[in-house]
């Protein structure tokens, strides 16, 4: 038997997002140019028509997410990519995708803010915007990536989660990861798990589009396939029709939350690095996790029991992973390229058990391994 040749490629994070999206089955992209996410648009404008997909540049980011939701309702896996300012504009239709339960993927290549901020410099300042940016009480899934390979994997995961749980999924990467080039091995199609939305199998007259199911996720009919139903951003009953009845509103909002919460363990993605015996654990995500890994390695060389918890799922917050490192760690260090967004969550889970040390940098430069190591030495 011929040995399969591994396909090694040198890719940028943004390019890996494109590869992941195409492999996951994405066939529609609508976007608006913005640094540092533009490469995703540019490459998909070449690739999507080659696979009978559609690329369209819209008039703004509001329109981009609108078109993405429309395409998804018509049955095509769809995504957009943007950065901070554009992500702010998408918040309106993001809420629509949540309440109407429309699968879609939004990649936010984070840059410094507020406002126009730092277009070509990295940041992690949209963590809370991704969680709470759209109005109303809603669940959301937010993933992150710290390597080029993870950009690929997390994009595939983002599509799978969006299809499986009928929800928008946000992938937060940052300017460093988006623009950095690394070698990665492209997996074979057979090695990638792809999930497609569950469609109704009952006859159309029996279809109740927003009826509760054991998973909390109702089967989704695509437009034009015989299941004529109503999709609205108004709070609706199980048939999709607007409702003002408390006995219908309550269960609906509860189901939206439950369908994510009850799959918590499946959604939680993390990497524990040298945490088994760690008295100090660094909790990091995105490009900071790269620096943190090296800092942990160097600290270990110095004989310090330090570990890393790398968060690949950012929301819902990784309570169980943090609780796990709290079994050994008396100190948690949370370096972030913002004024402290995930560290608040860490403190909330910690409940005073360990000492939580924050390290925040918002000057547009990355947090280096030396800085994290210095912090480790300072507290140990």
């Amino acid at each position, binding site marked *: 038997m011929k040995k399969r040749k591994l396909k090694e490629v040198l890719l940028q994070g943004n390019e890996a997002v494109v590869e992941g999206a195409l492999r996951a089955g994405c066939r529609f992209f609508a976007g608006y140019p913005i640094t540092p996410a533009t490469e995703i648009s540019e490459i998909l404008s070449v690739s999507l028509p080659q696979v009978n997909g559609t690329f369209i540049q*819209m008039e703004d980011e509001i329109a981009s997410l609108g078109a993405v939701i*429309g395409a998804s309702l018509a*049955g095509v896996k769809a995504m957009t990519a943007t950065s901070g300012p554009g992500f702010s504009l998408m918040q309106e239709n993001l809420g*629509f995708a949540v309440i109407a339960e429309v699968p879609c993927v939004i990649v936010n290549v984070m840059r410094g803010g507020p406002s126009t901020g730092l277009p070509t410099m990295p940041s992690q300042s949209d963590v809370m915007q991704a969680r709470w940016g759209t109005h109303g009480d809603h669940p959301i899934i937010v993933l992150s990536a710290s390597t080029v390979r993870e950009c690929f994997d997390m994009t595939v995961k983002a599509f799978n989660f969006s299809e499986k749980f009928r929800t928008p999924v946000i992938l937060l990467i940052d300017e460093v990861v988006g623009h950095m080039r690394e070698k990665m091995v492209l997996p074979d199609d057979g090695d990638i798990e792809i999930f497609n939305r569950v469609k109704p199998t009952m006859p159309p007259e029996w279809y109740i589009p927003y009826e509760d199911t054991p998973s909390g996720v109702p089967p989704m009919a695509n437009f034009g396939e015989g299941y004529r139903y109503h999709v609205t951003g108004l709070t609706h009953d199980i048939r999709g029709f607007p409702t003002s009845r408390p006995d219908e509103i309550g269960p609906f909002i509860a189901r939206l939350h439950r369908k994510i919460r009850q799959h918590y363990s499946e959604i939680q993605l993390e990497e524990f690095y040298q945490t088994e015996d760690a008295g100090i654990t660094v909790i990091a995500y995105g490009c900071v996790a790269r620096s943190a890994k090296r800092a942990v390695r160097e600290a270990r060389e110095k004989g310090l029991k330090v570990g890393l918890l790398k968060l690949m799922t950012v929301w819902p917050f990784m309570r169980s992973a943090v609780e796990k490192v709290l079994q050994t760690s008396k100190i948690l260090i949370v370096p972030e390229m913002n004024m402290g967004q995930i560290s608040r969550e860490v403190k909330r889970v910690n409940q005073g058990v360990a000492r939580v040390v924050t390290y925040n940098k918002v000057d547009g430069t990355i947090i280096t391994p030396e800085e994290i190591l210095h912090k480790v030495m300072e507290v140990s």
Partner: protein
Amino acid sequence: MSEITKLIHKYLRHDKKFPHVWCPGCGIGIMLGALIRAIDYIGYEKDEIVLVSGIGCSGRLPVYVDFNTLHTTHGRALTFATGVKLAKPNLKVIVIMGDGDAVAIGGNHFIHAARRNIDLTAIILNNCVYGMTGGQNSPTTPYGMKSTTTVYSNIEQDFKISELAVTAGAVFVGRGTVYHAKLLDSLIEKALLKKGFSVVEVISHCHTQYGRQNRLGSAVEMMEWQRDHAVPVEKALRMKAEELKDKILIGVFIDKELPVYQDEYDKIRERAKGVGRK
């Protein structure tokens, strides 16, 4: 039941959602009737119609009819419709908007949809006011009129939706009124059959809000105003400017051919397949 009523009922969702939200005497029902008659006359299947709307009184229209229906965010209906149409070009996508929806909050989407020439039909109900929120000034409220946010007087100039659509590049633009129901039927029918971005502006009345605040009388009186002030575009060509001062032009404003987005994109797909994957 008369034949025409039976026809309307064929397309309604009887299982839920009646009575409707609109005020007695509202023009939206007339517009809906015209749309249903046009759809029935052309012979579209219910499954192939996607009816998309924004927010406001007109935004509530799709829920009552038995098509694939999509009630989107305020002003964004055309963007959702763009996604639906490009993802499944065999669907007939019709967008219902109000004046605030189409040319205030959604103005940017409107001109770009027209410029792009995607095969969509936009039907815009223009009643010169934000009705659902209680009668505020809209971008089509005429100069000098009153609303709950211009209680002294509206000092802004109004958008002329059809003229705007022509300038933005729509390939078919027609304006009708809810008084001229037969004209409305034919305008919507022509718009639906037109390949490319087509617009029908429907002049309607909001006697509950706009009419009351400006003392314009009942729904019937406001429709009589439409009868007395509407001038066919062909006739207007022979009239002087001062004669046309308080008139509204009705009829077909433009009917032209331009490359349609989907056809052009199909060509892009063919070209792209000859290029190595990047």
